[in-house]
């Protein structure tokens, strides 16, 4: 009911917009036909990429990853409406580096993180972890890999079991995965706690006795106990105060330097992502719109969405008057994304072609990808 109504409101807005724009050179453009052609070309590319061997340098390589959720089903169980939470995302992540994923709420960044960990079964695509494609693995096959990949959740208040002590929370994964012999577990856990800045007498305490920052440290310690290679951090500092945020970010950086973790850092706070990441991916409505190393993304943002996102971050200097790009409207519903380029309804640089043809995700500088019609589309 609510989804339907919201769409109709959006539709009326779109109609008003269309009336104002009038009819242009794409008036007799057959959207459906063109979309089918484009989809075929995209499938062809995906099929070709599928044959390629995985990159030996990358710890994690994601190719054309898709995760669709079914919203409406017929009586026979056939889905008639899909929510494309993650739609054709590809990237590589080297060992020991940090990839920051940014985007507004509802752009699919959390779903991407969870799909990579196989907490959601991907709809299509490949996930290479250390050269093996885990996309099609069954839960039983995934279990030994769980020691290699871990997640830190956003809300430290709801992600810790209230009935077990800190010691119990931290020793459970050690027991399950048989990391150390049973009689050494306590010393091992205490060592991990010390690394995360937790005092040893916290061992017998319960989560409710701690503040948000301390709880987040417990969550980090829990992820560390199994000695993982890849840690997905799903907005680990969003629920924390500024001074505590700095403590947690410094802890994550220190652990990376000493233990060589690879982070997939998901956040909506650009300044935090900039501080911690080596590579940055910008997502909008399920697609990666720009990807590259931190320096090239921040000095030369290509996609208009990235530019708007960067200019929207408030600057803590009262004398700097920023020439801000204010985007109009809200993020559209991912159940009914706009045709063509998904961003064209809010884009300050939108052209006519944008509302009809989706741009190609292409490499413009070495390691710097973007999907936008403002840049040449042909090879």
């Amino acid at each position, binding site marked *: 009911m609510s989804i339907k109504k919201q769409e109709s409101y959006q539709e009326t807005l779109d109609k008003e917009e269309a009336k104002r724009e009038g009819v242009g050179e794409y008036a007799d453009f057959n959207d459906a036909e063109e979309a089918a052609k484009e989809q075929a070309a995209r499938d062809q590319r995906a099929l070709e990429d599928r044959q390629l061997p995985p990159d030996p340098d990358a710890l994690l390589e994601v190719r054309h990853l898709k995760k669709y959720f079914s919203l409406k089903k017929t009586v026979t169980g056939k889905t008639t409406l899909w929510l494309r939470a993650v739609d054709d995302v590809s990237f590589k992540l080297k060992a020991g580096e940090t990839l920051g994923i940014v985007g*507004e709420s509802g752009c699919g960044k959390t779903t991407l993180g969870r799909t990579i960990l196989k907490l959601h079964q991907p709809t299509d695509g490949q996930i290479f972890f250390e050269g093996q494609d885990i996309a099609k693995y069954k839960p039983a096959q995934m279990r030994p890999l769980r020691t290699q990949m871990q997640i830190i959740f956003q809300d430290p208040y709801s992600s810790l079991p209230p009935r077990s002590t800190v010691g119990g929370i931290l020793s459970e994964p050690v027991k399950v995965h048989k990391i150390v012999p049973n009689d050494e577990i306590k010393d091992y856990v*205490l060592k991990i706690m010390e690394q995360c800045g937790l005092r040893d007498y916290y061992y017998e305490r319960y989560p409710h006795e701690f503040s948000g920052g301390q709880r987040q440290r417990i969550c980090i310690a829990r992820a560390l106990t199994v000695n993982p290679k890849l840690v997905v951090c799903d907005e680990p500092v969003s629920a924390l105060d500024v*001074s505590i945020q*700095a*403590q947690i970010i410094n802890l994550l950086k220190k652990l990376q330097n000493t233990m060589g973790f690879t982070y997939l850092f998901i956040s909506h706070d650009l300044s935090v992502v900039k*501080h911690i990441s080596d590579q940055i991916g910008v997502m909008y409505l399920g697609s990666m719109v720009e990807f590259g190393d931190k320096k090239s993304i921040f000095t030369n943002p290509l996609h208009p969405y990235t530019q708007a996102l960067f*200019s929207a971050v408030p600057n803590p200097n*009262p004398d700097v008057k920023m020439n801000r790009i204010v985007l109009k409207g809200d993020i559209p519903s991912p159940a009914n994304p706009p045709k063509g380029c998904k961003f064209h309804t809010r884009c300050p640089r939108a052209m006519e072609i944008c509302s009809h043809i989706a741009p190609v995700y292409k490499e413009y500088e070495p390691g710097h990808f973007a999907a936008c019609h403002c840049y040449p589309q042909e090879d």
Partner: protein
Amino acid sequence: MNLFKKKGEGSETSDKHYLSGKEIRAIAKENNKVMRRLEKYKRRKAPESEFVTEMKDPGNILEVENLHSYFFTDQGVVKAVNGVSFNVPQGSVVGIVGESGCGKSVTSMSIMRLLQGPTGQICEGAIRFKSFDFKLDEKGKPIPIWEDDENGNPIYDEVYVKKGKVPVWEDDENGNPIYDPAVGKSGEAVLDEEGNPVLERRQKRDEKGRKVFEREVAVKLDKAGNPVLERRQKRDEYGTKLYEMEEKVFDIAQMPTKEMYRLRGRQIAMIFQEPMTSLNPVFTIGNQLDEVTLLHVPGATKEEAKRRSIEMLNLVGIAMPERVYASYPHELSGGMRQRVMIAMALEGNPRLIIADEPTTALDVTIQAQILDLLRGLKDRINGSILLITHDLGVIAEMADFVVVMYAGRIIEQGTASEIFHHPMHPYTIGLQKSKPTMDSEADSLFNIPGNVPNPIEMPNYCYFRERCSGCKEKCFGDYPEMVQVSPTHWVACHLYSPDERAKEDVNEY
């Protein structure tokens, strides 16, 4: 390993109190006495002279002086706001920053007198607000402003009353009525006794096919049959009647709760953090917006209220306000809901808007939209804004004056450029350094160790002592006094107290 004997030794959470049942009962008994007295004081009937005061500086719209707001819990008295004083000058934006638990929200709730009683109480201090209120006659009714003709004589109008419905007929080009053969329920032509089709005059229909009716209006007559006359009153652009206004200074802390209706919504409006929980899910947006006008503007009719609501929705940049007017809160996105909240705050034409974390629940791009809107509105409605947030970036962009709070007290206040370019208190400096910025290249962030203390039974020394890196011997003494460093800049820290400053260069920190 001897783990469990160390409990409480130098721990960060050791300030947690574990009380016995006997102790808790003793505290509760003591608290009940105080709470009952304060609740009674709030419910009392008081003449206006008891809470009308004078402003210290006539340029201010709000003066908060030595405000103490406590929560009387069974664990002890939580001094959430402990001696806060600041001013909001007319037409400016004052920002309050601090981490969660610093008492920012409790300060704003105290100003609105919305503290959850009987536990939450304003115990001490004054909140002086310069209101622009209706002038009342002896009977307590507002005095209307009359409209006169050129010669200064009053104008009298006839009063109209609404009567039954009258159909609106459709006519042809020459103004003659059109007749159609009548159609029965089953679709057949209706015939009269002689077998001729019955004709029916054509009535106007709206776009949905419903017949259009008009309300019949008649002149109101008194018992003798003469028309009732009413003196014409001045009206504003929305058609609302105008009354005589006067400036009065109220001490909000002393006002009885019932008198607060004169200020809330009409004089001081509030924008809350979470727009979904602040809007009622079972009423339409229009219904909730109209309510404000109907409550706060005397003599406003439903049509006037609707016109005003739609105008306000337009003002906050909502496309198609009629559409939003008729929709329910769940149909709108977060940014739209926050715009509706702002529209609702503007409805009563307030002189002071308290924005309590207005953008915290929103995305960066939507936050940019809302901040743009607030900045534009401030100039248009000529109001003042008290902005409460934990985001230093938002404060830097919006505020003229900044108040930094820590554990229920103000530790530093000054103009925005003073606070951001010459921060003095170690906490302010730490807050600014610990926030990663877009143009900084630091490898490791500065961090303040530890947490904000729980303000139950705070000792009488600097609350920041345990977390401070510039801590001195003197910090183990009394709580530092506010020190004035420039005409507008105040700081509460022993590093800047007069005798300490003479000794050494404090800029070393």
